């Protein structure tokens, strides 16, 4: 079924919307959750919570692309779950590796996380991503949005792993330089 019709079912408060979302995007959502959490049980809970999140947020939202809308919910829920459990256990998944890599961009230090700083970071990130060539942007987001391992990125895009690693390194360096220029470091 087309996304538009599934969204219409959410708006009509028809529970078939959840069943159809599951049928169409469950595999995709599990991939995101598992990349972040590296635990099937936790991923299952994240994906399950995603449908609840979608049910609660549509309406008022009316996503144009249901796939990325649901994926975004799963990502956020999975990252929250990761942070919640992180204090107690190490996941050993891609999230830790990604965070280690991102600590090359920004220091691994505590922040007050003011809303102003967050908004500014989002703005600079949007500018930065817009300036990147398409291939470089895709590799960056596959790594830090989807948390895909390097091997998976290489396979999905048809590149060698060394090319993906090198591209990620250069992109991180460029982002660090930009953040430095903008005074956010």
């Amino acid at each position, binding site marked *: 079924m087309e996304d538009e019709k599934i969204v219409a079912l959410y708006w009509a408060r028809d529970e078939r919307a959840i069943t159809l979302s599951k049928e169409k995007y469950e595999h995709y959502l599990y991939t995101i959750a598992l990349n972040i959490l590296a635990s099937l049980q936790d991923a299952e809970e994240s994906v399950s919570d995603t449908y609840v999140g979608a049910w609660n947020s549509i309406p008022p939202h009316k996503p144009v692309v249901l796939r990325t809308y649901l994926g975004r919910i799963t990502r956020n829920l999975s990252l929250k779950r990761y*942070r919640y459990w992180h204090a107690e256990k190490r996941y050993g998944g891609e999230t830790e590796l990604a*965070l280690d890599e991102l600590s090359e961009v920004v220091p691994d*230090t*505590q922040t007050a996380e003011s809303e102003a700083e*967050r908004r500014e970071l989002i703005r600079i990130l949007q500018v930065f991503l817009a300036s990147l060539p398409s291939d470089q942007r*895709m590799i960056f987001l*596959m790594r830090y*949005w989807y948390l895909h391992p390097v091997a998976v990125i290489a396979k999905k*895009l048809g590149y060698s792993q060394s090319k993906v690693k090198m591209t990620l390194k250069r992109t991180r360096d460029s982002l660090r330089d930009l953040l430095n220029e903008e005074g956010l470091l």
Partner: protein
Amino acid sequence: MKRNELLLDVIGEVKDEYLQEIDSRIKRVRHRRMWKRGLLAACVILIVGIAVQFAVMFGGGLGSRGGGFSAEGLVAGGYYFHQTRDGDVFRYTPEEGSDRLLKSSILDRWKDIRYPITANDYGFYYSKGDWIYRIKHGETKSEKLYHHESKPNYLYLYPAGANDIALRVSYNRADVMTHDELLIIDGITGECKTVIMEQGIPAQAYDSLSIDDRNFYAEQEALLVSHTVYADTVTYTVGDRTLELVYQAGKEWYDYTYRLTENGKTLYNGYVEPYNVRTVGDSLVFTVGRGGNNIDKDLNGYVIVSPDGSNHVVNVPSVPGNEKFFFTVKDMDDGQDILAVRVNDNEKFKLKWDRAEERHARDIYSDGSYLWTMGFDGKKGDYLASCYRIEYENGIPTALTLIDDDITDNN
């Protein structure tokens, strides 16, 4: 929250279009990969398809049927040799029920040529190029036996007694026969034992003829007659008996015939062919010739000369079986009967026939122990050969028991 965690968090806020960009890129890569795989699979299928087609068209085994239109059956040495329409030759062993590919014509199939073949008690023979090859019974290795001067236009092979073969070659120039010869070759050593007929017409003799001349064919015939040389005698031995076939001039140049004699005494009041001499047991079977005074007669028959001094004539159209019985097939209103013809007195015995399907037997072959029928099978849409065991009661053949409905199934 740490700063790197915050960065990871805010990366989640990127525009949808960037994520869609990734989705469409992955789809494109996947599609390209599938296309490549599909292309590879198509190539493999194409190659396999061509190979199968090649095998069907040219190969032994796949699609190569043992019956086949005009497939010739030869019985010798306890085997049944048969050639497919594609030219492959198989050797069927009735005791084992096995049909072995003896000579594949796969590399020559494009020439649309079927090898001339024959067999005797010693082995199986075929002609290819300038050579006659031999495969001994029980073996599969081809050995060169006899080399002839140049590639003839036509070549035929016949059995000529227990161990010899007859080779007939014709060399044509345009539509005019320029050379024709018939040789008896020792099937073991390859030595040419007898030249039965030789017809070497000098080229200049033909050059003087004009095809527009109304007397062209008459002059051509005159040339053929004047340049044809026949062997005076052809010798065969049966046990201690020495048989001489003495040349008799016929009405026409091609009407060469021989009288069968022993110590100057005629054994058969008619003519026999100097080749196509087969064996049944220790006896020799001469085919009654249609030349000489028999030229206008519709003759069918055999003269069987045995080592014990006895001679018999079978004048029923039939095929040789063993020293006591030959076999014939007779069309009836309700099908076909197979009859055994007793060599001693030509008395016929109808055999109870466990017939394969409703197949019409076009030809039969036998060695006295087994009988093969070759005919068209409507259901399978092809000529097929079946093998039967001949059952005897009190020394008389009484029945045919089907042991192999389609011998090519065993290829």
